[in-house]
């Protein structure tokens, strides 16, 4: 299935992509230097001038930006154009700390929506599809991004936004939605609710789903595909760079193609900031080479992943990023061990539990504690305490084998962990109230 929205770009030979990126980068650095005082100061401090950037090979000389810079420069400090040229503001979902706002010109919006259109087409979308968008609409980029992409493809767009699961299901069935766009945890929740209402996977009209905005595992993909009877595609993006669609999955489902005509990706060592060779695991850094209003250069995403440029069966030449192993700020350090919620989720799914869980980290007597609350399924419930305790112990052992630290597992009643219709609250770190810096 070779579905392209902009085939010429998406299948451009690698040398040509790099040449194009080089040319755009040189121009963009000059533009940012001239128009963004905040970044100009950073460049001056580092002793780098726009003339020093002659192409991709000089990218590493530029200073990097972090979320802290965006907070410091809030709201207009990184804006590169006059506000009268801007048509939109979006904001980060606030997963971590204070919100950050991003600005868009109409051209920026078009580019972003085209990126989403590429993702929809790669998932098999055409103008004959009914695209059901239940990402949140509003400041969050999920809803507006996929909504715009769906329009560009010409799909019949259902701007559901999040919440009201009963109505989602009614419209999904009555209006024959074929493509579902939402967070993976909400997709799983819809699947679960459909089953409870007595629908079989073949009773809906969905053929594909485009799921992003949070980390999810292959096991969860498998579960969602089974419960909804669809093929589930990953999509990645961040408000700071544009929104969903910075990269997206093709039919091969072995990583997400980064839209390299608009974004340059690098992998760095998160500790030293050193650029790592292709194929290394490290922090993803993006440079936005087409953006007019909010053009970030070398923005550190805190997402840990790997970039690879193997020939892809879909025909796309854009570099692929692996599913982020977790945002580096999702990472918890528990008893000195780096732990990502996605690792615990993988164990749960592997052991036959649904991915409905909550992780609570605390510090008791100067030692970190890790409690994992897992919802049981009917089959897990036994009238014998011994059996239940055994299940908890065996799950603890499996988690310990994965992480190297001992958790306490608590089996809890079904639906007792609060469901989110946007992003799931997976981690409660009570150490934060103690003012411990992690």
């Amino acid at each position: 299935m070779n579905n392209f929205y902009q085939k010429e770009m998406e299948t451009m030979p690698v040398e040509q992509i790099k040449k194009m990126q080089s040319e755009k980068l040189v121009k963009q650095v000059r533009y940012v230097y001239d128009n963004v005082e905040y970044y100009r100061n950073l460049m001056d401090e580092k002793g780098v001038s726009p003339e020093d950037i002659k192409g991709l090979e000089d990218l590493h000389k530029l200073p990097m930006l972090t979320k802290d810079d965006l907070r410091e420069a809030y709201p207009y400090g990184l804006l590169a154009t006059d506000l009268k040229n801007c048509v939109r503001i979006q904001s980060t979902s606030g997963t971590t700390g204070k919100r950050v706002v991003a600005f868009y010109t109409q051209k920026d919006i078009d580019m972003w929506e085209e990126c989403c259109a590429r993702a929809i087409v790669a998932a098999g979308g055409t103008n004959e599809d009914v695209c059901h968008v239940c990402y949140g609409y509003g400041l969050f980029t999920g809803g507006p991004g996929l909504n715009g992409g769906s329009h560009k493809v010409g799909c019949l767009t259902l701007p559901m936004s999040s919440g009201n699961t009963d109505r989602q299901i009614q419209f999904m069935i009555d209006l024959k939605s074929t493509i579902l766009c939402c967070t993976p945890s909400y997709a799983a929740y819809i699947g679960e609710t459909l089953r409870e209402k007595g629908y079989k996977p073949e009773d809906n009209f969905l053929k594909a789903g485009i799921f992003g905005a949070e980390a999810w595992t292959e096991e969860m993909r498998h579960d969602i595909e089974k419960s909804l009877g669809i093929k589930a595609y990953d999509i990645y993006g961040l408000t700071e760079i544009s929104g969903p669609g910075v990269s997206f999955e093709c039919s091969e489902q072995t990583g997400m193609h980064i839209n390299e005509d608009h974004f340059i990706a690098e992998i760095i060592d998160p500790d030293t900031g050193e650029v790592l060779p292709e194929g290394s695991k490290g922090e993803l850094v993006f440079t936005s080479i087409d953006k007019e209003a909010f053009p970030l250069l070398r923005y550190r995403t805190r997402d840990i992943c790997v970039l690879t440029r193997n020939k892809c069966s879909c025909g796309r030449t854009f570099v692929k990023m692996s599913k982020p192993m977790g945002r580096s700020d999702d990472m918890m350090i528990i008893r000195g061990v780096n732990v990502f919620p996605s690792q615990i989720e993988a164990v749960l799914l592997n052991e036959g539990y649904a991915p409905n869980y909550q992780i609570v980290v605390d510090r008791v007597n100067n030692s970190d504690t890790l409690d994992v609350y897992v919802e049981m399924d009917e089959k897990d419930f036994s009238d014998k305490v011994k059996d239940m305790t055994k299940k908890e112990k065996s799950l603890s052992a499996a988690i310990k084998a994965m992480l190297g630290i001992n958790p306490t597992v608590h089996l809890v009643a079904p639906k007792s962990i609060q469901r989110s219709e946007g992003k799931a609250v997976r981690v409660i770190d009570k150490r934060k109230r103690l003012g411990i810096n992690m």
Partner: protein
Amino acid sequence: MSIKQLSVFAENKEGTLADVTDAIAQAGVDIRAMSLADTQDFGIVRLIVDDIESAKQKLNENNCFVSVTEVVGVAVNDEPGGLARVIRLFADNGINIDYMYAFISVSKKNAYVVLRVDDCKAAEDLLVKNGVTLINEDDVAKL
């Protein structure tokens, strides 16, 4: 011959047990016997009721986790040594008791014991062979 026990998962949270008993009350079901196993995190409420299907349905509607298990019901003479004789039989024949609880019936002036074992049939055969009186579902409803 065995009787059915209703087991309900009860998280160790305020009001959980009241939710369970409320649901059974709403179903109009009479509780014959009850036992609560507790751990640090959760409890398991085990119930013998006069109408298991109605109770189960109501509990399900209230999002309670319910399972139905076969248990052995024994009528024990309400006199010293009545229970000891039954338990000794299990011990001598290598039948492990997971848990048990007892109740009395005011109308029948009898004591009853509910026993959870892995193999109900084997336990019942043993008891019958030794002249112990068992109770069945109908007996429970009439108690």
